[in-house]
């Protein structure tokens, strides 16, 4: 089966986020950008279902379940580097939908729907959210637009014939849902540990094809529907205080913190 994996270019997870002085957003100038970690997990999952795990006894990953992996990114020219990372890990080809400004989740979902219509994958595996805006909306919106079943926050994905069983991390524990294919899956942190791409694969990735498109090619309007009024740093944490008696604690909770 063919799998589509959307990948997003975000500020590297190791870096400390700084708000721009004019409060219009986060400062990205000259900072290292990387693939969103949840997207990396999505790429890894697709590859494991393609390659299997010959060295792991009883692995639920079977070679050949997935036959083709298409990585798609929506962003500026530099998002090609993010696609190359996916190709170096093991994706087969890439699609860049070139947009130079921020794209909101609904517009991303509309573009992805158009890519799905064109590519006809059986599964789309997405990160549950991107670590920049933490929207956690795109997968769900895409499922709604396509009318496909969705298994979000996956911690295990098992394909079985025309179905896929997705184990989800929910508040009460784990829940397994059986979805009919085609389906949408979004990845949680514990689904897998993404690989590092080997040097030969990095080099081979340079020769894998990347199609460049624009939202116009798919007839999608990406004009923002939301307006960012202001971006601010979270308030600095106040130091704690020690209380001498339970009486004092209750008093503070009641009268100062206002939580009782």
């Amino acid at each position, binding site marked *: 089966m063919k799998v589509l994996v959307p990948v997003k270019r975000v500020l590297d*997870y*190791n*870096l*400390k986020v700084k708000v721009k002085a004019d409060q219009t957003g986060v400062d990205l100038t000259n900072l*290292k950008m*990387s693939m969103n970690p949840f997207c990396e997990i999505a790429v890894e999952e697709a590859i494991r279902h393609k390659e299997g795990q010959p060295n792991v006894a009883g692995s639920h990953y079977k070679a050949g379940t997935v036959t083709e992996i298409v990585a798609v990114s929506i962003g500026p020219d530099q998002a090609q*580097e993010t696609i*190359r*990372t996916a190709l*170096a890990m093991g994706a087969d080809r890439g699609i860049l939908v070139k947009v130079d400004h921020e794209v909101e989740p609904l517009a991303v979902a509309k573009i992805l729907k158009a890519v799905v219509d064109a590519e006809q994958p059986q599964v789309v595996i997405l990160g549950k959210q991107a670590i920049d805006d933490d929207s956690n909306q795109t997968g769900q919106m895409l499922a709604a637009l396509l009318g496909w079943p969705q298994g979000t926050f996956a911690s295990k994905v098992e394909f079985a014939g025309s179905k896929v069983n997705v184990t989800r991390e929910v508040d009460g524990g784990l829940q397994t849902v059986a979805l009919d294919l085609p389906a949408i899956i979004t990845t949680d942190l514990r689904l897998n540990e993404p690989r*590092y*791409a*080997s*040097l*030969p*694969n*990095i*080099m081979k*990735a*340079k020769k894998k094809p990347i199609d460049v498109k624009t939202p116009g090619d798919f007839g999608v309007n990406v004009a923002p529907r939301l307006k960012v009024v202001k971006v601010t740093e979270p308030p600095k944490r106040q130091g704690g205080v020690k209380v001498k008696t339970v009486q004092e604690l209750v008093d503070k909770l009641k009268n100062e913190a206002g939580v009782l």
Partner: protein
Amino acid sequence: MNAFAKPTGALDFDALRPPSPFMGEAHASWRRELRKFVERELAPHVNEWEKAGVLPRDVFRKAGEFGLIGAGFPEAYGGWSEGYDRFMGIVTSEELARLGAGGVSAALMIHGIGLPPILNIGSEEMKARIAPPVLRGEMQISLAITEPSGGSDVAALLTRAERKGDRYVVNGSKMFITGGMTSRYATTAVRTGGPGAGGVSLLLIDLESRGVTRTPLDKQGWWSSDTAALYFDDVEVPAENLIGAENAGFIGIMMNFNGERLGMAAGATASARVCIEEAAAWAQQRRTFGKRLADHQVIRHKIAAMVQRVNASTAYLEHCAWRVSQGETPVADLSLLKVQATETLEFCAREASQILGGAAYLQGSRVERIYREVRVNAIGGGSEEIMRDLAARQLGL
């Protein structure tokens, strides 16, 4: 998630690295993936390996699979050379240097000096026999030049190899051999002819042969990599293990040094950058006399002086690498570059230690380890004194 987790200041390793006019997307990809490998497979175990004094075998195999050991070597023997230019090599040195444990890369990359003579002047049969298992990380190969009687004066070496029928009989000893305890083979400089450079040959010696004795040497730094004295007592070596022609080994040895010096300069410069990263993070966090260490002029100046030297070394390094990649062999500059880099390392290891204070005197920190690695960099692969002398001769003085 980050194995190098520490308070992030503006002066971390990446921010300190001046943008390179010679590096592009391929270099960035290699850096990113290599960093993942280093942070996942190497960094968490460094303290353990430093204590054990040796790198486990499976680390070599993992590095082989990942492509680190084959990086820059011909594809025909299981390496990967297409697109792996001198600047990819610099990225490799830099990312390994971030460990702050030169012994790990000295052990992992020992084939970087042991294997090239075979690929440069060895027979086709020898290349096919030795290179693939080495590049897969299944066995290691050391380089054995220095002797108890001397190192820098290669042309005066004493270990003798007498031709007897279809074999050579080797007698003598080698000193300070990196990987000597664990390597299967040593590319060994021996005397087959008369005195001087014209009597020196390179011989591939199986270190498991009868008559070979290895003694471990404890040392100041590089604990993760073993170092040995090798003794050869009537060791029989098949004649087909001669690397290149008889009495023509000297040039093979000298060719090797240029690449080694570029690599050492890259590693030393990056280790110096690690010292700044550690010192700057500490200086911005630690408060004394009511202000940050970084706000004391004496500390600010130390950090600026470190950056000044590291950036100068980086520019020289990249310029030399560019000349080499254009087909030049700028021996004088490669020699002086190594001096520039190791003096920078010495300066930065000292200044970072002063800024970190007691914290740099305790074992287990990157600066403490790097401080103990200054001498092996400043002496190994050509001492600063020999490098300057070589440069002066090359400059026609």
